């Protein structure tokens, strides 16, 4: 066995490194410089129309950053942002008409009012989550619109409230160029301040709440206080955007603050990427300029009827529909948004350049496996249910989880795949079943089921071919009863009678909801569900995980029984080598994505080097 172990001495693939600090810092500097150049160009040579549009982009970017604080950082959903913008805008319109109306006082008053409203909508958030919280903030939206409408009627300002043109000392802020310049400074300042907040303790605390509120509380984060802080801060920022909107458009009217307007901010942070400020900025630019771009396309088309006119008159509905399409597209295919995807693409490109050379060198150095010895013991082709030939799995970042694995599962046998955490066991199972989540994984080599290559097939296709996986977790539905589970799993809902002999413990619990079963019973149920489907090949992922020894024993006995009586071949993936070797006919040991040893349980058990290092069964 020593020569097999020697393969380990070849250095494994370069460990995956996190993004270096230096690289990230350079990227940030480049972004700031580019933004500064664009701003200066706009202010100096930009046309009046370009300036007009950039004003809105800047204002909406401030609001989007405010929303990103709440959703991306603290993980709280809100559709109340149009209402908060309205609150800022109306506050400014009203205050600017009084003796306090000297710029920037109304902006500050709007921030305070926004913060107070944020505190109020934060209170239901202490109890509500997800969809329910979104509905509560939707309530805020309708209340605000209703109140604003009433206010305009009662004061006779049916066409909206006028906002006095602002001035700041000698500066005439009514001049668009000047005001846009001020917006640029404000936005830059806000980005700097929030970047700092996220860098230090407050950012960490919000991230922990976003990840898991329960967990954050348990590690000592006062979640109530910090959730409220996010609501207050984010609402104040959005209200400031509303205030600036009032000054910029000079009239505040209720028709502006539609639900469509509220949702456009969600679209911004979702397509840009909810996780970062840069994402929110990108989204704000794209979503705000899109209608104008479409409009100019429509204008360029030949006039006088036809497509150009149609596009021109339907522009509002088209952008509306586009929001929907884009939103669905991003939620389905790019849930992290555009910016992280671009970042990954950039890193991938530069890594590729560095790796190509290294990979070539490695390919030459790789030792050739001693095939002759392996084939001796191998059963004939007809007796093989599953054969993996040169299987490799690579994930997006370039990390190779599985590297050139050869493995066979003969008919009627129990084969164990052993190895510690991160050895690549689960990746092998994913390659067989096609169960890759959204991560971009590349599968190399062949996966032969009854001699037919199924590599790359979808989970639906592999399961139709009779490959049944009992996953490591999330295998039962808490609210369904045991009987429901079995009926759902069984072909045509007909559960075989023998279930009473094989799983007596379960049959006593037929009416119990699965959520009330103990860990061992759930595991038993998952195996039973797989069994009623008459699998051609049964894959078990860590069935003994978290089970008391007595339950592990019982479960293994069930597995042996279904293997023997129904001749179901089993591939058992386990860390618990002792348990797996007690029932397996043959076993493979995986380390760093490669098979480092294989043999019958007795061969492996008495290999001291192996038991100590990989299996940990040494006394």
């Amino acid at each position, binding site marked *: 066995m020593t020569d097999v172990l020697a393969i380990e001495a070849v250095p494994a693939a370069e460990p*995956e490194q*996190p993004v270096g*600090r230096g690289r990230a810092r350079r990227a940030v500097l480049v972004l700031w410089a580019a933004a500064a150049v664009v701003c200066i160009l706009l202010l100096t040579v930009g046309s009046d129309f370009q300036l007009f549009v950039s004003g809105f982009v800047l204002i909406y970017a401030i609001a989007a950053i405010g929303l990103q604080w709440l959703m991306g950082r603290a993980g709280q959903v809100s559709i109340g942002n149009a209402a908060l913008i309205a609150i800022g805008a109306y506050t400014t319109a009203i205050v600017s008409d009084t003796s306090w109306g000297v710029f920037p006082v109304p902006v500050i008053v709007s921030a305070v009012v926004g913060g107070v409203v944020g505190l109020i909508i934060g209170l239901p958030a202490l109890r509500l989550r997800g969809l329910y919280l979104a509905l509560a903030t939707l309530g805020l939206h309708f209340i605000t619109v209703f109140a604003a409408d009433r206010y305009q009627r009662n004061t006779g300002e049916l066409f909206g409230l006028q906002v006095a043109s602002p001035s700041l000392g000698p500066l005439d802020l009514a001049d668009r160029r000047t005001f846009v310049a001020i917006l640029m400074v404000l936005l830059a300042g806000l980005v700097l*301040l*929030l970047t*700092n*907040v996220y*860098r*230090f*303790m*407050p*950012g*960490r*605390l919000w*991230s*922990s709440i976003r*990840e*898991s509120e*329960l*967990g*954050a*509380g*348990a*590690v*000592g*984060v*006062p*979640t109530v206080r910090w959730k409220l*802080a996010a609501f207050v*801060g984010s609402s104040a920022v959005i209200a400031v955007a509303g205030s600036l909107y009032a000054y910029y458009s000079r009239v505040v009217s209720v028709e502006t603050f539609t639900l469509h307007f509220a949702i456009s901010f969600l679209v911004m942070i979702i397509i840009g990427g909810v996780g970062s400020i840069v994402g929110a900025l990108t989204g704000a630019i794209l979503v705000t300029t899109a209608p104008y771009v479409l409009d100019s396309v429509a204008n360029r088309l030949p006039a006088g009827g036809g497509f150009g006119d149609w596009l021109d008159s339907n522009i509002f509905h088209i952008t509306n529909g586009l929001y929907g399409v884009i939103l669905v597209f991003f939620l389905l295919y790019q849930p992290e948004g555009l910016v992280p995807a671009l970042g990954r693409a950039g890193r991938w490109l530069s890594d590729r350049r560095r790796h190509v050379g290294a990979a070539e060198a490695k390919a030459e150095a790789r030792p050739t496996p001693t095939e002759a010895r392996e084939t001796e013991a191998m059963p004939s082709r007809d007796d093989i249910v599953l054969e993996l030939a040169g299987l490799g799995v690579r994930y997006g970042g370039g990390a190779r989880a599985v590297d050139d694995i050869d493995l066979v599962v003969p008919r009627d046998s129990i084969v164990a795949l052993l190895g*510690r*955490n*991160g050895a690549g066991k689960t990746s092998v199972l994913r390659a067989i079943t096609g169960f890759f989540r959204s991560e971009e994984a590349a599968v190399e080599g062949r996966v032969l089921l009854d001699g037919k290559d199924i590599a790359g097939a979808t989970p639906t296709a592999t399961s139709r071919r009779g490959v049944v996986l009992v996953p490591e977790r999330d295998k039962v539905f808490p609210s369904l009863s045991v009987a429901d589970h079995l009926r759902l799993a069984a072909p045509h809902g007909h559960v075989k009678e023998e279930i009473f002999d094989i799983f007596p413990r379960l049959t006593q619990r037929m009416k119990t909801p699965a959520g*009330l*079963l*103990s*860990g*061992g*019973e759930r595991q038993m149920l998952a195996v039973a569900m797989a069994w009623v489907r008459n699998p051609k090949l049964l894959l078990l992922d*860590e069935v003994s*995980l*978290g*089970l*008391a*020894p*007595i*339950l592990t*024993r019982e479960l293994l006995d069930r597995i042996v029984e279904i293997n023997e009586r129904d001749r179901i071949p089993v591939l058992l993936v386990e*860390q*618990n*080598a002792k348990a797996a070797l007690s029932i397996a006919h043959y076993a493979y040991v995986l380390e760093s994505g490669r098979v480092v040893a294989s043999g019958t349980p007795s061969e492996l058990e008495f290999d001291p080097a192996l038991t*100590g*290092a*990989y*299996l*940990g*069964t040494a006394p």
Partner: protein
Amino acid sequence: MTGPVQLEVRSAVLTFGGLVALDDVGFTAADGEIFGIVGPNGAGKSALLNCITGVYRMDSGSVRYRGQPIERLKPHQIAALGVARTFQNTDYFKHLAVEDFLMLSLMSEQPTSIVASALALPRIRRRDREGRAEARGFLEEFGLGAYAAHTLGALPYGVQKRIDIVRALVAKPSLILMDEPTSGMPVAERGAVADIIRHARARAITVVVVDHDVDFVRRECDRLLVLDRGASLGVGSPDELLTREDVIQAYVGV
């Protein structure tokens, strides 16, 4: 039992609807003791930990920590008293960087002012640097220094679990509650967990640990509480309990 009582749970009762999770369970753990809680799945072990840390409210019973009743406090208040816990699953924080995750434990020492952070005042920068250095120091002490900048979810499960235990140590607690620290770990890596527990003992930290690994429990724990279906089968030394007929029947099953 040696030394003064650090943690005392008395007649804890917890029900979920009609399901009795804990039925009149009690134990005491002394200063610096390693106390184990064992039992089959569904025995109520995690429920008991959650009652101590304030995640669940007991129906009746009391929890005293250094003589102070804590059963009515919120989880973060209990944490602030010096009670840290580790998780059975580390899925909770998979998008956090390891360093940031560890620094959650410095919550009570680090400045958390939003305004001061926004301005990146020199004081904030300095304290943040010190905090990160402290977190890294802990990681290095347990041979995990290489992972400081990684995202937690990208690391192997066993490493995540060790980092979670180190996270609890960073808070410099006087009591740590560990929920199945070795579950899902190969025996070879369990030694690293035992190392961390011994380190805790050397610093006179009391450890209450729930685990399934009989050998591990027998080796590391001073005393045990055995639970079965929410009821206590007794408290005593591992050698005494793990050889008792009813305990073997319920749990060990050999």
